């Protein structure tokens, strides 16, 4: 490629990314610390902010393990078995990502709240899905459903069944094969999927907004809190500070993902 062309392309790309990604990141950091670090710290240790963070983490602590177990189980079903409805099972996992989070929120409300199908009977048993942490768990679990599965399935395919067969000839039972052979082989992929799930869980906004009713202190997750700071309280410092914390958490997730990707790439090359 001609040198002048190369530089032209590079410039276009760099300018585009600079405007789109670079600038906003820099300025958000500036805005968050615009009144100095003490003010920043004060903002993010507000009781409402802290309880929002707490709720986010609690919801993640429930949704992530469930979706991990579901992801691993369904991955084995898809990658190691043939059955009627396999395609359908596969499609279900794509719905949460193809669909707007607001729509997912509306769907959940129309299924489980008093306005919808099961709200009345559920309320009769004391279960309230709308305007409660339970609804937030539902919404969060729904939107973060497929990440573990999608990370694992290609790896399971690529792995092939030879190792599992070898273990069988050596006398291993099915549980042992899973534990000693399959699981260790997919552990980085699982970790990758879990990291993505955590990032998605902590950051979910639209679906939770619709489902939670946005009651400050009780049903606010961190993203909702950030929105609330801007939308209701016009508290710009609060908004930027909260956003920065969430951004930092996702940077950590990104770094972990990049590291895992590099490790997996190395593994592949070694065993090519």
């Amino acid at each position, binding site marked *: 490629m001609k040198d002048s062309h190369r530089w032209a392309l590079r410039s276009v790309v760099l300018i585009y990314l600079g405007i789109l990604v670079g600038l906003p990141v820099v300025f958000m950091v500036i805005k968050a610390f615009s009144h100095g670090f003490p003010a920043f710290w004060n903002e993010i240790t507000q009781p409402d902010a802290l309880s929002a963070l707490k709720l986010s983490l609690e919801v993640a602590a429930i949704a992530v393990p469930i979706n991990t177990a579901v992801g691993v189980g369904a991955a084995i079903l898809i990658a190691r078995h043939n059955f009627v409805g396999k395609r359908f099972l596969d499609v279900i996992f*794509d719905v949460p990502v193809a669909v707007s989070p607001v729509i997912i929120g509306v769907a959940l409300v129309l299924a489980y709240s008093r306005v919808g199908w099961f709200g009345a009977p559920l309320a009769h048993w004391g279960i309230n899905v709308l305007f409660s942490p339970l609804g937030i768990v539902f919404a969060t679990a*729904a939107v973060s459903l497929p990440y573990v599965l999608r990370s694992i399935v290609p790896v399971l395919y690529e792995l092939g069944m030879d190792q599992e067969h070898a273990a069988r000839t050596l006398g291993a039972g099915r549980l042992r094969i899973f534990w000693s052979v399959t699981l260790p082989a997919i552990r980085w992929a699982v970790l990758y999927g879990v990291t993505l799930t955590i990032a998605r869980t902590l950051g979910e906004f639209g679906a939770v907004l619709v489902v939670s009713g946005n009651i400050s202190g009780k049903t606010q997750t961190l993203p909702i809190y950030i929105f609330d700071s801007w939308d209701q309280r016009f508290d710009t410092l609060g908004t930027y500070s909260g956003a920065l914390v969430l951004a930092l958490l996702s940077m950590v997730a990104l770094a972990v993902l990049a590291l895992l990707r590099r490790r997996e790439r190395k593994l592949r090359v070694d065993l090519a």
Partner: protein
Amino acid sequence: MPTTTPLPPTSHESAPLSASLAPCRSSRFSPPLLAGGGSALLVGYLSLIVLIPIAALISHGLSISVATHGAGLAFWRWHVLIGLKTFWSAVTASGAKEAIVLSLWLSLSVAAINSIMGVAIAWVLVRDKFIGKGLIEASIDLPFALPTIVAGVLLLAIYGVDSPIHVDLFETWMGLMLALLFVTLPFSVRAVQPVLASLDLESEDAARTLGAGGVRTFFTVVFPSLWPAVLGGFGLAFARAIGEFGSISLIAGGVGRTTVASNYIYNLTQGFLWTNAAAVSTALLVLSLVVLITTNVLSSRYQKRTL
């Protein structure tokens, strides 16, 4: 019904989902937990989280009601009514029409722009070498890992009312576009990158020896192999853009010219107009599914697999 993979960040793999359903022999040595009970739990969970809500959504959206005539629950006595009139009036209500149209053309434009820029960025990442390339590689994933509300705050920080560079895009279409370009960027890049990386450089060299210049080589040699992936990326970016909520909710401001479909639906829920919300949601759902499935079918059909 072929579907797409929603995971762009793995730059070494972004095969469309139909590839992931490669035929396999059934294994007799999978863990026993999955037989019977485990599968039932799985199906139950998925129904709870996805199937039932979506069914409820469509049922309310299309005002589907089931009446029985005569006694007894035998299904041949069921009479299914679909309230298309209600659906249609909700979808064409003032505000609804505008929001849907806005979402539609915004998403199409954004997907188109990022499809082009995606190729350019992927090219630089795959074929070029310079210091700081790693930083760019990482920054591509940023919009994907970043919570949408944070993205909204980010964009507001620089293009909002008190913008430090005096560019006020609050309550403008340009502002919405920037937000959508930001969040759909990774999908476009990651769809193309692995395909570009696996292209056989020799065909391009051959073209050059035959006298073709850079641009000609690109369009006659590279692009034919690349376009299925670009199309796939377009579909993913479109689906993401049309459903995007968090990042545009801040820069869109109040109700008005800059209300997109997802925002409109949210406003409906705040007003407890659930049937209308369901109707517009169903319309949006169908729209994004149609585009997604079409682009996925086309792209996987024409995707040349490199062995």
